[in-house]
């Protein structure tokens, strides 16, 4: 009887168990949930940025008359206007735009590496992983230059109450404006940079494992895909960091 057979079989729908309802292995799900939690970490930092910035006065004068002062939050174009090799030239946000482009390019090469993994093409995976590592490292190098420029400061510096001049910024003093501007800049871009750095370490491990042929023997490159998820996430976070620190 047909009813008996249905009574004897467990149900087999998408969510009825015995399968992977989201069509994702447990490892990939874990990466997604980790990224979700990391979103909250960054979310907390960016909220902090927003709240602290809100506590400070905004600059109300014209852009031409802008000078650095602790009385108001600085205009980012006036702070980040340097470019390596172009000393003294005002190039607002040019360098950070380049950095951002490099990071987005690294995301593109990552996609290509994952795609090559789907084709089980070892050589292509190696090639695109290497490009991703290269672009990622370039981004970090750019950030290092950006930081060092920020720390060294402008030529004029800031006049201190005791008559001396202070150049650049650290965690307790800042020639560009309120000290928290520098605190948040170092903290949030530093935290993001740490993520990029971890990503590069993971990518190097992936590269070595690929060269050794481990994934080829395993028959799939899912590990590269998982690290790819992380890498795209880190890029996406940069888009938000970039928006908050440089554009808004």
């Amino acid at each position, binding site marked *: 009887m047909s009813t008996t057979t249905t*009574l004897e079989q*467990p149900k087999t729908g998408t969510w009825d168990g015995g399968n992977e309802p989201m069509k994702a292995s447990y490892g990939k799900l*874990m990466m997604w949930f980790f990224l979700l939690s990391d979103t909250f970490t960054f979310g907390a930092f960016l909220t902090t940025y927003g709240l602290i910035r809100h506590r400070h006065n905004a600059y109300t004068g014209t852009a031409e008359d802008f000078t650095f002062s602790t009385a108001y939050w600085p205009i980012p174009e006036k702070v980040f206007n340097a470019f390596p090799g172009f000393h003294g030239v005002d190039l607002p946000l040019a360098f950070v735009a380049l950095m951002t482009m490099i990071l987005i390019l690294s995301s593109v090469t990552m996609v290509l590496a994952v795609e090559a993994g789907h084709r089980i093409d070892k050589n292509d995976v190696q090639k695109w992983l290497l490009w991703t590592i290269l672009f990622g490292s370039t981004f970090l190098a750019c950030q290092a230059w950006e930081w060092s420029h920020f720390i060294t400061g402008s030529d004029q510096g800031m006049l201190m109450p005791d008559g001396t001049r202070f150049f650049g910024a650290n965690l307790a003093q800042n020639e560009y404006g309120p000290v928290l501007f520098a605190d948040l800049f170092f*903290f949030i871009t530093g935290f993001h940079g740490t993520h990029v750095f971890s990503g590069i370490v993971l990518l190097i491990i992936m590269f070595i494992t690929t060269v050794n042929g481990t994934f080829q023997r395993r028959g799939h490159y899912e590990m590269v895909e998982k690290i790819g998820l992380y890498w795209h996430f880190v890029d996406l976070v940069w888009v938000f960091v970039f928006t908050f620190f440089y554009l808004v």
Partner: protein
Amino acid sequence: MASTDISLHKDVHHDHDAHDEHDHHDQHFIFKYIFSQDHKVIAKQFLITGIIWAFIGGALSSIFRLQLGWPQATMEWLEPVLGKWIEGGKLSPDFYLGLVTMHGTIMVFFVLTAGLSGTFSNFLIPLQIGARDMASGFLNMLSYWFFFLSSIVLFFSMFLETGPASAGWTIYPPLSALPQAMPGSGAGMTMWIVAMALFIVSQLLGGINYITTIINLRTKGMSMTKLPLTIWAFLLTAILGVLSFPVLLSAVLLLIFDRSFGTSFYLSEIYVAGEALANVGGSPILFQHLFWFLGHPEVYIVILPGFGIVSEIIATNARKPIFGYRAMIGSLLGISLLSFVVWAHHMFVSGMNPFLGSVFMFLTLIIAVPSAVKVFNWIATLWRGNIVFTVPMLFSIGFVSLFISGGLTGIILGNSALDIQVHNTYFVVAHFHLVMGSSAFFGMFAGVYHWYPKMFGRMMDEKLGYVHFWLTFIGVYMVFMPMHYVGIAGFPRRYYSWTSFDLFSSFANINMYISLAAIIAWLAQFIFLFNFVYSMFRGRKATANPWRSNTLEWTTPVNPGHGNWPGPIPAVYRWPYDYSKPGAEDDFIPQNVPFSQTQSSNLPHDKE
């Protein structure tokens, strides 16, 4: 067929056991019991660590209750234990603050988060959904060892010369951000932060494991609406943890920078000992927002596992289906969702905009709705049930009682106007100790008594269990009911001494009474400890399904080995609450019995 199947499994199991000892001779003790990747062993590790912490946490509270209950007494007799924290026969006020802080931190995080959901999520998720183990045994093991490391750091912070962290378990800056502010804000605070960072890593590793296991590893037929309510509760607990703990991590990272690297995220315009600090522009309120964004979901992380455990035990022992299964899931979802949008009700007096206060008050009071749904469902499940008063059942009923008593005062505290009167008084202390502290403990006790036979293959002693229950139940009410009165009178929490306020001298007796009850209730827990350890070796041998329960863990052998089921994993055909189904032979039908074998009791919709 399935029933023969079960007995068949048993036979296989005996074979398997003998076989096991042969086969795993090479599995070293260290990998079998210490660095184990078996979810059952990890669960026991969490449980035993949690129990040790609970006794330490209880001991700390007994010491500060001595101070509150007998402020004139000399405490020289504690000198051999506390050493120089007893100054001239008196408890040092700095150490008192450290005691309060450590009591809160230990109980909330180390006992009722790691000890409770660490134990039962690990133990029950694979067993009840029909999986051989967690998705990743290795991450699961790491989760325990990060917790262990964190425990070590926090434990040693209590032996620092300057004392442990003392700014309260909420570690509000500037007190916690300025090492020079008080002795406990020095090295003790640093170690507290390190311990918490490790703890958060442990929680994340555990949490993502629990979630993915529940999504991907359910056995055939185990749909989301056939899951036992325990699993729903653990799933949502894990989601809350994964989403809220990272925010605490953010908060303490910023705090580390303020403490050690001279930033001003939480600091602005401060004088310490008449000297102005350079910090400007930050906001201590910011920390409160970040902290309570974790802190409020955290109290649900503590209580949700209790909800699940209690629902399961009440249905089993009332021999009735849980009343409103879907409403139970819905209310769990509702509570979880709301837990993220009510955090500022902890900050009504922080100077935030009163309009914002009323928004948070509105959202907070909505939580009463799903909570009431749960309470009424438990009561309706008990209603005209065929109740078996086992020890876990008593603790579950006790849980419902405490949850109601504590929940009612939550409505008062959630009201932003009323909160101004009772904020930071013992009224708050009484409220949360009943509604989340003691309740969660009762959930934990219920769970330990109920699943002990599955954990250790033996039953805990019932008579000792009854004594333990009644002493604890009465003790808890004797401690926290009078505390409400003290709180309404304005008695502030965390104060070392109240004798200089004439207003409060009439409360001397009531404080002594509370202290006495607290210490007796703490001592009663040693009955549990004895029972727990003794039964492991001498307890009555358990049968495969001692509570005649429906869920899958009872289809495993009495002592399940690695992989849980010696044969194939059972498939699931029905929900877990087919108790006393009309027309059925027994008053319970396990989840793995197909409908074809229960023709006499099938309902029209079962045949679809």
